[in-house]
């Protein structure tokens, strides 16, 4: 770890949910914007403690579901009545009842696909290159530790002050992560 490397972020480690919860409330009230709380599991309500609202994902998924259903129904109708009208068991070309199952299934496909892809998009994932992931301290976040990270790109960031700030929140361990 040569010191010539750029500092990427400062991280502070906490041991319990309660600790990080209170720490988050404090960071929220500070002026930092580029910061995050990392937990091994979703801590319910922590995003509120961090001052975030609800995810916008459902609107996107809903729109895509409607698109899928409408598209599937339209495709089936177009094929059966216009592109390739053939007499099947003397039934009407536009046998809409028979198109329902596929319409439904495609709706689910579009919704589910957009839920996952939308989530990845909103999270800007995948993001394989991330200096945090190389930190031995940070690695504990996927096991049993709770970490608050404040990125160096934050305008208020100062390596020393920020570390001090994290310590003041009760972090048991604080370090700088370099690129």
């Amino acid at each position: 770890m040569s010191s010539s490397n750029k500092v990427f972020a400062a991280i502070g480690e906490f041991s319990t949910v309660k600790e990080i919860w209170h720490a988050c409330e404090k960071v929220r009230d500070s002026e930092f914007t580029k910061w995050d709380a990392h937990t091994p599991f979703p801590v319910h309500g922590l995003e509120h403690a961090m001052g975030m609202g609800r995810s916008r994902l459902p609107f996107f998924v809903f729109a895509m579901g409607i698109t899928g259903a409408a598209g599937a129904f339209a495709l089936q109708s177009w094929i059966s009545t216009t592109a390739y009208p053939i007499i099947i068991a003397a039934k009407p070309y536009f046998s809409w009842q028979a198109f329902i199952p596929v319409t439904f299934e495609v709706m689910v496909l579009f919704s589910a696909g957009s839920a996952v892809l939308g989530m990845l998009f909103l999270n800007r994932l995948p993001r394989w290159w991330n200096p945090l992931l190389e930190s031995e301290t940070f690695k504990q976040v996927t096991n049993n530790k709770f970490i608050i990270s404040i990125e160096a790109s934050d305008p208020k960031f100062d390596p020393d002050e920020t570390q001090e700030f994290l310590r003041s929140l009760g972090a048991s361990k604080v370090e700088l992560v370099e690129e």
Partner: protein
Amino acid sequence: MTHMFPRWTNHLPTAVAVGVPLLGVAVVLGVYYFFSPYYTDVGYEPTQPVPYSHALHAGEMGMDCRYCHNTVEYAAHAAVPPTSTCLNCHKYVKANSEKLSLVRQSGETGEPIPWVKIHQLPDYAYFNHSAHVGAGVGCVSCHGRVDQMEEVWLHEPLSMGWCLDCHRNPEPHLRPVSEVTNMAYDPVAAGYDPSEDPNRTREVNPPVHCAGCHR
């Protein structure tokens, strides 16, 4: 600090998000075109055993198609003429030409001339020339300007979709039955309207169901 993944990998998702849909569309369209007779078959121009020129016979000399393909009006096949048809003239005309040696040989031995097939449908598709000629579909609609081809090549894809296009909307391809073999006739230019043709006794009603061609 050493990283497991280099920094550029963070751009991969964007690339994939843009690239994969494009690739998908490209594959479908690619298969649609490059695996289709439009690409694989149109323009097929094999070398024939006898350098027979349609451009010369049908074009320049103005021979009617039916002189050789004489079964076209009453049979499914527009039969390739027997050697004897060639020899009707070539017994006298260019009787010693080098190019015609195979024809003469066939006439003497009775062995057929092995023409290479160009307009080829799968064995499960049944095309009937008499039905089309009788309905006033010109030779040129499927075979192109044979009268301008030195050696015949495949002008149309003869795919099912191509057949269906005309079967669903035959009017633009119809002409007076008397003009069927007229390669230069253009029904649009001539302002032809099949519904006003007094020689037509019935509506042209080509089949669009499976058993029309597959049986």
